[in-house]
């Protein structure tokens, strides 16, 4: 599977690569079926089913598709084969996925069958059978034995379902029934906030963030309309709910960070995982966040090298980070968690580089988890910006990464504290 990109067309790409890195197969910006996604799909193992019943432990996994909104299709993810306990634990949560190879993750995730059905987004409060079972799986923090009955047995082996934001999964098939073989294991904090129909979704998420409930679990709850004030609970497509959770948790941390003293020196962090290389600079200035990602030639979305940049100054963004999309909010959350942890604010510069080792999209959890690991590593400390910049350059293959940066490239906003002494 690695080296799958060797089969990418060498002639001029049929779509402008600059469009592809912003779209990542997920926004249909070119208006055609994604040729890059088709190529990736062709390299992932297929699932063959011989019966309409699919029974196995859902990791727990659920999916809400966005096509046809405000109608959505949703259901549980169930593996058709019994899994080793070890494999299952590995599939449960993105915090556990980190460190595993891309081949391993793609192979395991693409066996999960999505048994889906259409629902109105407003069905969350008055769920039908399949929705109710899916909600129960969403509540659980452990695998739940689940039985799906499919509308028909597919005649051929089926390929995976991929997106840039969501983790890979197996084929999506219409289901007529979904039943749980055991009770879901629901953490107490989840039970309490799902039962609280006066708390806004943002409030509930912020509160869950103070417990051991993971970002994935929060995202499942939000997606299945299990959080928020009673009359506003709605189903939210998985892709949107992932970014909504990252953004909401980040926004809740921001006022805290802005109250913290500035970092005294420059910190440098680094981590690499599955062909994704992150370098992070924390500068001793007021809060600001600047992220660039460069898809090197031959990597998933880029027949030729492409860079995208999004940033926010102290006062924050007013619009969606439409160049980097979900990865921006996942990266920002990881950095904000770290700043709260060390009790400092800083201007943050993230340089992400992607090579052809990253041959299938794994979802934005990869950005969140790799960034979290980068921040956990002990920082290299610099007093001098020029030296810190040289260090990033040494590990970067991007010509002009500094020029791409909003805070380092063009013009940066100084603060009054940088001038003269107070009288």
């Amino acid at each position, binding site marked *: 599977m690695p080296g799958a990109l060797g089969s990418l067309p060498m002639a001029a790409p049929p779509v402008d690569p600059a469009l592809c890195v912003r779209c990542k197969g997920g926004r249909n910006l070119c208006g055609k079926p994604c040729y890059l996604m088709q190529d990736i799909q062709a390299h992932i193992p297929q699932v063959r089913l011989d019966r309409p019943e699919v029974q196995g432990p859902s990791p727990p996994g659920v999916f809400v598709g966005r096509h046809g909104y405000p109608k959505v299709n949703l259901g549980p993810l169930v593996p058709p084969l019994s899994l080793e306990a070890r494999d299952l634990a590995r599939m449960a949560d993105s915090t556990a996925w980190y460190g595993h190879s891309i081949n391993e993750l793609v192979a395991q995730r693409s066996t999960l069958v999505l048994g889906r059905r259409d629902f109105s987004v407003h069905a969350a409060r008055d769920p039908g059978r399949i929705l109710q079972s899916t909600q129960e799986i969403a509540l659980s923090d452990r695998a739940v034995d689940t039985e799906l009955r499919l509308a028909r047995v597919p005649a051929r082996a089926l390929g995976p379902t991929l997106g840039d934001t969501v983790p890979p999964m197996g084929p999506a098939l219409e289901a007529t029934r979904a039943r749980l073989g055991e009770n879901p294991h629901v953490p107490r904090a989840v039970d309490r906030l799902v039962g609280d129909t006066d708390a806004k979704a943002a409030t509930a998420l912020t509160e869950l963030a103070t417990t051991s409930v993971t970002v994935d679990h929060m995202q499942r709850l939000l997606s299945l309309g299990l959080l928020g004030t009673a009359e506003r609970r709605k189903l939210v497509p998985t892709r949107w709910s992932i970014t909504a959770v990252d953004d909401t948790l980040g926004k809740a941390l921001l006022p805290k960070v802005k109250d913290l003293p500035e970092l005294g020196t420059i910190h440098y962090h680094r981590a690499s995982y599955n062909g994704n290389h992150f370098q992070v600079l924390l500068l001793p200035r007021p809060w600001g966040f600047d992220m660039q990602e460069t898809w090197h030639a031959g990597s998933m979305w880029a027949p030729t090298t492409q860079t995208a940049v999004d940033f926010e100054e*102290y006062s924050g963004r007013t619009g969606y980070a439409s160049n980097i999309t979900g990865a921006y909010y996942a990266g920002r959350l990881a950095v904000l968690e770290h700043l709260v942890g060390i009790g400092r604010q800083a201007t943050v510069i993230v340089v992400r580089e992607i090579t052809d080792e990253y041959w299938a999209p794994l979802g934005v959890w990869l950005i969140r988890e790799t960034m979290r690991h980068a921040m956990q590593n002990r920082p290299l400390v610099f007093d001098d910006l020029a030296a810190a910049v040289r260090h990033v350059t040494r590990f970067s293959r991007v010509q002009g990464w500094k020029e791409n940066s909003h805070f380092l490239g063009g013009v940066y906003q100084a603060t009054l504290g940088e*001038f003269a*002494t*107070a009288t």
Partner: protein
Amino acid sequence: MASVVANAALKESTAMFRATVKADVLKHIVEATSTLVDEAKIHITTDGVSLKAVDPAHVAMVDLSLGAKAFESYEAGDLELGLDLEKFKDVLKLAGSADTVKMEYHKDSHRLVMRMGNLVRRVGLVDTAGMPDPKVPNLNLPNKVVVSAEELHRAIKGSESLSDHVTVIADPEFFEISAESDLDALNLRLPKEELIELEAAERTKSMFSLDYLSNMIKAVRSGGALTMHLGSDYPVKMEFDLADGNGHCVYLLAPRIETD
């Protein structure tokens, strides 16, 4: 010990504020301050009122004072009041610019009672305990330019569609503001004789954020003159009078700096 107690008692007894002022003067102060902060700590003494505030990003600062003469009547002791500026702005909308506003601090309810004609508005105050007392940095700014606010207004307005910052040059012979985008450019050059005053021994150049600059220059109001003290890649200090010369506003704004 006894004298400390006596002092405290004295301070308590003078913690009063009763004044009448044109609504327009208050509106001007709030306008000049609220571009930088949402809340401000107002220092009140027998001589007048003043405030200092730094915006949350530490990019700009306002240092504003209003003498007792700016008021139609003024009686006050030493006092600090915390104002929610957005709320205060809304309250002032109840008064026309030519109206007068009577203000009185009610210690017991910790409110500022404002009377506009027969309308009485009691304004709850904000706790000043957490509000910083910013120090005004001592800046060495070689050049001085005095220019009409109207000229600046036009240049700033024109620049906003091109860029998020402008370049400001003070030269022995002229003063210049310019902005550029990939395709377009704007430039306002005022020769020495068209300026109210120009004292520039050497040429200096700094860049400033339009977000900040535009709001600050709006606060000068048309017809007014603005004094700018400038250096190279250095903050600008801008000063202007308010309340017919009985008040004074100073802004400091940190520059944008080219990193290469």
